[in-house]
């Protein structure tokens, strides 16, 4: 899947869970930069991404998701 397709889908997921789109998707983006992206919503975001891309993350992989770039790369490798 192409990177920009992945990014757009991730953006849709974030918008639907967080109920706002006050963020720009870029590689250095982290949860801290986005309103409402806390440990509670993180779980829901991860689950929704798994559904949307029909993939399943390993528990260990979740710790490596330090920023948007890492997330998008991981999705690309799995999808």
């Amino acid at each position, binding site marked *: 899947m192409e990177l920009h397709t992945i990014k757009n889908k991730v953006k849709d997921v974030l918008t639907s869970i967080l109920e706002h789109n006050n963020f720009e998707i870029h590689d250095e983006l982290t949860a801290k930069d986005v309103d409402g992206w806390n*440990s509670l*919503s993180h*779980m*829901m975001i991860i*689950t929704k991404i798994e559904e949307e891309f029909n993939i399943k993350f390993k528990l*260990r992989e*979740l*710790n490596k998701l330090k920023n948007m770039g890492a997330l998008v790369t991981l999705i690309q490798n799995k999808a």
Partner: protein
Amino acid sequence: MNLLVEIQKSIEEHRDMNAFYIEGTYHTYKDFAQVISDIRNVIRNTVANDEAVVGLITNNDIHTYASIIALWMEGKGYVPIHPDFPVSRNEVIIREAEVNAILDSSTDQVFKTHNTISTRILDTVQIDLIPVSVKAEDLGYIFFTSGTTGTPKGVPITFGNLEGFIEAFWALDYTLDSTDRCLQMFELTFDLSVFSYLAPILKGACIYTIPKEEIKYSYIFELMEDHKLTFMLMVPSILHYLRPYFDEIDCTSVRYSLFCGEALPLDVTEEWSSCIPNATIDNVYGPTECTIFCTDYTYRRNDSNKTHNGVLTIGKSMKNTITLIVDEDENEVANGESGELCLSGAQLTQGYWKNEEKNKEVFFNKEYKGKQTRFYRTGDLCSMDDEGDILYLGRIDFQAKIQGFRVEISEIEFETKAILSKTNAVAIAFKNAIHHTEIGLAIESLVFDTKELIESLKTKLPPYMIPTQVKFVDKFPLNTNGKTDRKKLKELF
């Protein structure tokens, strides 16, 4: 038992063992003893003798843990202050507890206006772990929990309470020793943290903490796997997060897995037991008012377990606690009947900090086995079976548990109404799609943009109390008693 002497002896005896693993770095008990001694020195030099409690900024570092022990060794208690909580709330706590000095290990001081004592860079002094003499009624800490009128309630816990707890805990026969590797997953503003550092320190075991920016549940898993954790107390929400990944978890090193702070469902516990095949799983229960926890139930593997609505029993009272289930007139109910769970014994707080009104409401005296005994009403609806095991049925009042934190729904409503003025609002705790409790807010009004409201709430309330969903209702439905029908409103979420 003298708790402080026990701490001293254990630290001295285990000087070469690891005490902490924090952000990838080990600290031995000798390192710990040095930092404690250096902080004691600065406390002696800068804090007045008659200051019974000192504020503590809760960072995740050796200095913060050493500050607790240093204060105790000086016969003083601590009041944890979370640097990420709203300043206005922290200021209320500082004022209510009459805190003057604040220990802070941050590079940038959190409070510039108070007598802040930096614990980050200190003179190195001779190691000195000999505690001053303390009385059972001297304060070990005051923790503040959510209160109804916008002012958090202070729960003072004494060294006598802590000794009562530790003695009762060891009587449960946990064989913790200096080879154990123990999880400390709690914010230091949550009293389950006290257990998570104190029990390991008393046995010379190593404490593994969680860096603030990490996602807790996946970091816990890495600690379990990479560091072979043996002993862990967690809130059940962690299991809900980990559940989709249970098939990846096989940690044979775990010997004890304890749960506290929320209802523990049997089905998740059963699945979890396969992830930690060698562990004893315990469900413990207790409010902050009765020092950390005071009842215990050991889950039976491959056997039947007592439950109510799929929730495990909280078991029997520990050695130093008396449990009593009463009706509305404070009469003990028969086994099998439901009533409010009341607690008494060595672990029970002397009462809320400077809050006579609340004390009259929740503490009462009653003759128990021929003696006048002071009891605390937990607000928990329970029943006891013929074997003395207590079943948790739910809350009596409007408190909710969010991520293990006790939340007075009315405090959220109070702050919301204060911001909106003349607009009615009802906060509702509801279960979301992944069975987590979230806070919903129903507002009796036409639709408006709530961004400003939520931003204002964030300056008044800690993050776990901020509503995650808002709904607008033209007119709130009423129940047959003419009260706002909260059940109907709950259906909106």
